């Protein structure tokens, strides 16, 4: 009885599955050098960009997809995918928010992301990426006053080519892995953030990614540079319509923090997860990496992963500067037939570098949830420290939780701690809550939220409540 009820609670519907009817400029499916030329020319890119894309593409063709992850998926036909699709009304470029197509405004309103500069998200600047391009960016003027650059990636390529050329691919080179190479070849848009020396970014920055066009892939690229003594907090959100076929999302995110700089990067990933039988859903193959280049710098990743049919993602930190700090806080939830293989890499190079990993995996239905994490202490990482805690919560007898920690220590003074636990959601806990009069759905969400609390408290306030609600929605109907 309890199991049946838990199942009902966990199987809520995906509320963001609608499709926006909008006229788009969409190129035919297929991947070859011509397509790359086309994307680059549509974006009016300087020569160095095109060359870089082509080099990446030629390298990509020599690679085969990675097979080591604990996931099962049919091979992807990369010639079936559409690599560029953009709403016509937004393609010409926008001068102000007033010019944004009302259909797009309506879409983002339905997603709970108002693209005007007041109301609930008054303290948050939003860059809205729809399929292959950015359709609106709020608070540009206010940020400009502070000296902060926050704009679509393609705009940055036009306006700040020297910054792009200097930093692009320096954290995640196109040779890094199969999906990073693919992204480097065909990426279309994303966000660019530059925080000058000594500036504390006056508001939260966020990018909202939306896939709309059928059969299209989204390949965005985000680059955040925090100069000395600066601070920025950035959040990304993602959704997609419900479709029976899978869609590919392969993003690259690069973060660079110089001396004493801090970057806080939060993700609420809610791509369409597929239906109850595992049909459809987004394949989410993402490479995210931060580079603590300067001394005393700090990079924190916080991720709430509830969507996607497959998630393959390891937001990592290279701790090069002495005393630099890397953090990874993650909640990953897999329901129905979702699969997640996610975790982090903490590469300690500098002295006294510290890293913390808190991973909370929740598996329900037939979901498979894997934590995969590497902690590497390089020879010069004297007195480096890592603390890792991986907890898994199982909500059904048909789901799975797996933990693959990799620890490499090449410095005798380094200290690495790893704690792991797996528990099934307690019948005892549920009964206890219900005996006190809580409805079963409230009891489950209370227990799951309690389980995730360590991670939720790391989210920016504006989004912590949303993350809790998201978890409730994603959990509807999941123990069995």
């Amino acid at each position, binding site marked *: *009885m*309890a199991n049946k009820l838990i199942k009902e609670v966990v199987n809520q519907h995906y509320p963001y599955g609608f499709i926006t009817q909008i006229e788009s400029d969409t190129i035919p499916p297929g991947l070859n050098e011509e397509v790359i030329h086309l994307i680059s020319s549509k974006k009016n890119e300087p020569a160095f960009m095109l060359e870089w894309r082509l080099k990446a593409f030629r390298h990509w063709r020599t690679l085969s997809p990675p097979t080591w992850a604990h996931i099962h998926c049919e091979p992807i036909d990369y010639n079936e995918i559409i690599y560029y699709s953009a709403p016509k009304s937004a393609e010409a470029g926008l001068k102000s928010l007033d010019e944004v197509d009302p259909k797009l405004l309506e879409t983002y309103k339905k997603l709970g992301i108002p693209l005007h500069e007041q109301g609930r998200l008054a303290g948050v600047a939003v860059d809205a990426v729809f399929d292959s391009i950015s359709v609106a960016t709020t608070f540009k003027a206010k940020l400009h006053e502070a000296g902060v650059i926050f704009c679509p990636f393609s705009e940055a390529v036009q306006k700040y080519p020297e910054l792009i050329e200097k930093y692009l691919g320096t954290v995640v080179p196109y040779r890094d892995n199969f999906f990073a190479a693919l992204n480097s070849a065909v990426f279309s848009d994303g966000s660019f953030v530059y925080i000058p020396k000594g500036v504390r970014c006056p508001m939260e920055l966020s990018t909202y990614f939306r896939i709309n066009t059928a059969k299209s892939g989204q390949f965005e690229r985000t680059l955040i540079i925090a100069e000395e003594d600066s601070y920025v907090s950035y959040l990304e959100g993602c959704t997609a319509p419900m479709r029976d076929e899978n869609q590919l999302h392969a993003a690259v995110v690069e973060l660079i923090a110089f001396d004493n700089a801090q970057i806080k990067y939060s993700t609420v990933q809610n791509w369409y997860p597929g239906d109850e039988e595992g049909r459809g859903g987004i394949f989410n193959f993402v490479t995210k990496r931060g580079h603590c280049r300067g001394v005393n710098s700090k990079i924190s990743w916080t991720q709430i992963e509830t969507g996607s049919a497959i998630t393959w993602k390891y937001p990592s930190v290279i701790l090069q500067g002495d005393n630099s700090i890397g953090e990874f806080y993650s909640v990953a939830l897999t329901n129905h037939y979702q699969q997640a293989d996610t975790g982090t890499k903490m590469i300690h190079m500098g002295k006294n570098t510290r890293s913390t990993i808190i991973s909370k995996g929740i598996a329900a239905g037939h979901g498979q949830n894997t934590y995969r994490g590497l902690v590497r202490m390089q020879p010069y990482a004297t007195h480096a420290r890592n603390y890792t805690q991986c907890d898994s919560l199982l909500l059904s007898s048909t789901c799975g939780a797996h933990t693959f920690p990799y620890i490499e220590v090449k410095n005798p003074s380094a200290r690495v701690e790893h704690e792991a636990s797996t528990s099934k959601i*307690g*019948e*005892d*806990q549920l*009964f*206890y*809550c*219900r*005996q*006190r*009069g*809580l*409805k*079963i759905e*409230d009891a489950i969400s*209370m*227990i799951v*939220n*309690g*389980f*995730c*609390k*360590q991670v939720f408290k790391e989210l920016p306030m504006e989004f912590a409540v949303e993350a809790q609600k998201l978890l409730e929605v994603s959990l509807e109907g999941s123990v069995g």
Partner: protein
Amino acid sequence: MLNINNLQVTIQDEKQNIKPILRGVNLSIKPGEVHAIMGPNGSGKSTLANVLAGREDYHVTEGTVALNNEDLLLLEPEERAARGLFLAFQYPTEIPGVNNMYFLRTALNGLRKRKGLPPLDAADFLMLAKSKIKEVGLDETFLHRAVNEGFSGGEKKRNEVLQMMMLEPSFIILDETDSGLDIDALQMVGRCVNSLRAHARMILVVTHYQRLLDYIQPDVVHVMSNGKILRSGDKTLAHELEAKGYGWLEPEVKS
């Protein structure tokens, strides 16, 4: 008014064997009465407490349970709680990350809502919680910790009593609340239960030992063994049991 009539309950063990636990229990509690159930380990007293609260591991094969003329066995655990049934657990569960005060407030306001009462706001709730937590002898910091997480056995029991005091249920079941408690804690439990004695309230104390009954004077004492109530009487029965052991009532039952 609680009426238990010929209640028979089985449980399936890990080897899928079906084992009878309760073999025809009859028991009536009138409003205002305090009943105690005593009995040796494995006699079925805790099973009875859990079946009344609606735990799902048990299978009721025969008999009826009526609480205020309503069929209790048809109700979900949370619906039973809404009817005023409260079980102080023998082994209270830890709920990591869930703030004790948040939990209590959610429970209390949920019950108030069902009674058509407005929710207590944060300030009123805090005042109430602070006064009650003093009565159960816990420090205020326990309100801000996760539910039962890292509490000692005694602290968990005190937290159960705190919940009882806050929720003011109309039918209280104490499942071996005295086990593992020192004498001060026993006195506290006695004081709290006595403060809740009221003409409309029913209290069922499940205990292995007589000593809790020094602090809570029961109106009726039942002795349970092997899934049945062997004998009922007034509080002198408890003293007699203490002196003579359970073997006195049924030679084959070991104390």
